[in-house]
């Protein structure tokens, strides 16, 4: 198994037995589920809204060539700069260059998963630039030197006691368990950064082709401050975020808010399309959009999995995932946790190192059930598994095992004989009290659970007895 795979197993084992962690995550997801349940009832027809979102994203993704160029042209007309980054490295370099050119000392960041994907903050910090996360959850995990735990709720794994303690230790704030006061502490702390930073970095929830604008959605207003106060605004986003029309937001905004957090609409929805124009009182002097490919074109070229690019990063699949609920977001060891990440990351980072993520799923399909843009997530896990096997990422012994399994199952006589042999052997071994020990061939099963009783006769034996052999 790959290094990343072994690390995954280690962290997954640690977290799955952590009952406090399980309790916190369950509590948070219960709150979320209640909100989403209520949220859906606000739609006259929830399934029609999902279908509409799917159709919009389908149109955008399947005509990326047209819509991205349309977007670029409009942004340029409005005095903005557009940079096409084929790799994360190119995107990083471009943004670092802009920062260096302007002598940037401090950056305020609105939430951006693509910035995590390309490890932007680390690169800027190496240049001596201070990078401040301004989304409350991101701010909290930054203080803890952790990556975000979840793409929408980065600090989902913490309770208010832990946040209070963290603010006390790192910011010198008085301890409090009052959530509004905790928010106020972060707000007061961040205020000075908004006004001293030379550069603001944001992501984009959608890129709108006909308007030549992009939009970000936040609940704390930090996105608006990050993108309008500093002299330079860099918006960083994946190419798949493009949608054809401004009016598409009428469906996308409330649907994203509902599946993201259960809100009818997110508190702040900001549209941006260029630098400050003459006569305007605020806005950045320079506006840059960095369009990141970083492997997305390869998904686009794969007709079977192209729809994975429809993802609007709402986090619904992550919340619904029983694997996530037990191992948490950090165990995945990648930018995007949960089902969408288990589909996407092995594709982007390579099966050799990351195929285990596609296998670490019971394929229950809860993710597919909740996806607002109808991505068949658990079927894509199956496709990834098949593709990984075709690439030859698995051990020779496993391949041999499957070949033997097939050989046995291609004959009812062999199946009956080996089935009998296996049952009898296990009857003896378990009869000797060796169940669950290292001598138990069923140990991978019996280590964690009792073995089923091995019957003397199989169904086909009983059937023959009852109905006579034909």
């Amino acid at each position, binding site marked *: 198994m790959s290094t990343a795979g072994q690390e995954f197993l280690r962290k997954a084992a640690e977290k799955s037995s952590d009952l406090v962690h399980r309790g916190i995550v369950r509590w948070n997801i219960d709150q979320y589920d209640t909100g989403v349940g209520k949220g859906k009832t606000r739609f006259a027809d929830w399934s029609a809204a999902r279908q509409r979102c799917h159709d919009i994203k389908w149109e955008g993704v399947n005509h990326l060539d047209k819509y991205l160029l349309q977007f670029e042209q409009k942004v340029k007309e409005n005095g903005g700069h557009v940079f096409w980054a084929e790799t994360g490295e190119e995107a990083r370099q471009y943004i670092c260059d802009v920062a260096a050119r302007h002598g940037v000392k401090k950056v305020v960041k609105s939430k951006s998963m693509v910035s995590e994907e390309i490890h932007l903050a680390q690169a800027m910090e190496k240049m001596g630039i201070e990078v401040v996360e301004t989304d409350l959850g991101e701010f909290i995990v930054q203080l803890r030197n952790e990556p975000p735990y979840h793409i929408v709720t980065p600090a989902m794994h913490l309770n208010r006691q832990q946040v209070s303690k963290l603010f006390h230790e790192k910011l010198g704030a008085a301890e409090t368990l009052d959530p509004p006061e905790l928010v106020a502490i972060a707000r007061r702390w961040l205020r000075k950064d908004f006004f001293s930073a030379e550069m603001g970095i944001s992501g984009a929830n959608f890129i709108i082709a006909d308007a030549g604008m992009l939009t970000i959605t936040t609940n704390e207003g930090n996105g608006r401050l990050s993108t309008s106060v500093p002299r330079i605004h860099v918006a960083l986003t994946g190419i798949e975020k493009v949608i054809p029309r401004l009016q598409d937001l009428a469906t996308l905004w409330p649907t994203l808010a509902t599946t993201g957090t259960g809100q009818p609409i997110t508190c702040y929805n900001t549209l941006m399309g260029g630098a400050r124009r003459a006569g305007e009182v605020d806005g950045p002097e320079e506006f840059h959009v960095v369009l990141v490919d970083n492997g997305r074109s390869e998904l686009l070229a794969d007709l079977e999995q192209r729809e994975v690019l429809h993802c609007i990063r709402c986090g619904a699949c992550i919340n619904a995932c029983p694997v996530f609920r037990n191992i948490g977001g950090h165990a995945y060891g990648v930018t995007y946790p949960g089902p969408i990440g288990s589909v996407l990351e092995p594709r982007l980072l390579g099966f050799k190192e990351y195929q285990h993520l596609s*296998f670490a799923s019971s394929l229950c399909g809860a993710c597919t059930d909740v996806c607002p843009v109808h991505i068949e997530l658990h079927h894509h896990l199956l496709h990834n598994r098949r593709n990984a096997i075709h690439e030859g990422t698995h051990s020779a012994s496993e391949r041999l095992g499957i070949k033997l399994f*097939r050989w046995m199952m291609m004959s009812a006589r062999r*199946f009956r004989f080996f*089935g009998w042999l296996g049952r009898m052997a296990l009857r003896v071994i378990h009869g000797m009290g060796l169940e669950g020990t290292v001598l138990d061939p069923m140990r991978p*099963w019996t280590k964690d*659970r009792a073995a089923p009783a091995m019957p003397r006769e199989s169904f086909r034996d009983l059937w023959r007895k009852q109905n*006579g052999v034909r």
Partner: protein
Amino acid sequence: MPKVSLFIPCFVDQLNPQVGMDVVRVLRRIGYEVDFPEAQTCCGQPAFNTGYWDEARPLAERFVRVFGSAEVVVSPSGSCTTMVKSFYPELLAGTPLHDDAVKLGERVYEFTQFLVKVAKVTDVGASFPHKVTVHDSCHGLRELHIKQEPRELLKNVRGLELVDLPYGEECCGFGGAFSVKYAMISAAMGDTKAGNIEKSGAEYVTAADPSCLMHIEGILRRKKSNARTIHVASILAQTAAAGEKASAAGRGPR
């Protein structure tokens, strides 16, 4: 007499033979002639789910041939039924047996869905005076949309008290090879499920999938819980007449 062919998944054949026999009893009791094509082995799902589609394909082709002439196929597993109905068309795409597989898929039913939707029977004359809760198995629930069928059948079982299972639609953690390859995650999911079963106050948890039940049973026993698992067919097979079960009942005319 209408006839059905039994598809007994390989692990049911080997590990839960009684579930298969109980299916036979119920089907005969409501007037079906039951046939068991003995050439059947495994539908190929273990290989398919672990990515070995090239190894799964010959097993799928074999299955399509074995059941090719069957009018209706009934199986006590939502998961294996899903394999045939939902995944064979994709697995066999571009092969000569693809169309046969699609047609066969339309004739394959999970046991409870067959009873309620095809046979139109919701009362099979069963008696089971116990407190029971239902775990919704994932493949059955999300691929075959089985939700009400087992409940409708259980509501008509004499003496049975049906109680809600908190988070009943959440996966139990079995997931085939996942249960041994990622056993710690699987066991944690099972532990959560077992806790919810205990909270429900049920004596028995039932499901339309023996694989989930094998996993849940293993977890419950390791936890020394008093709750037990039972396949829905095994509940429906039990009748009020004492000792009927022991008398090789259900042996139909052949």
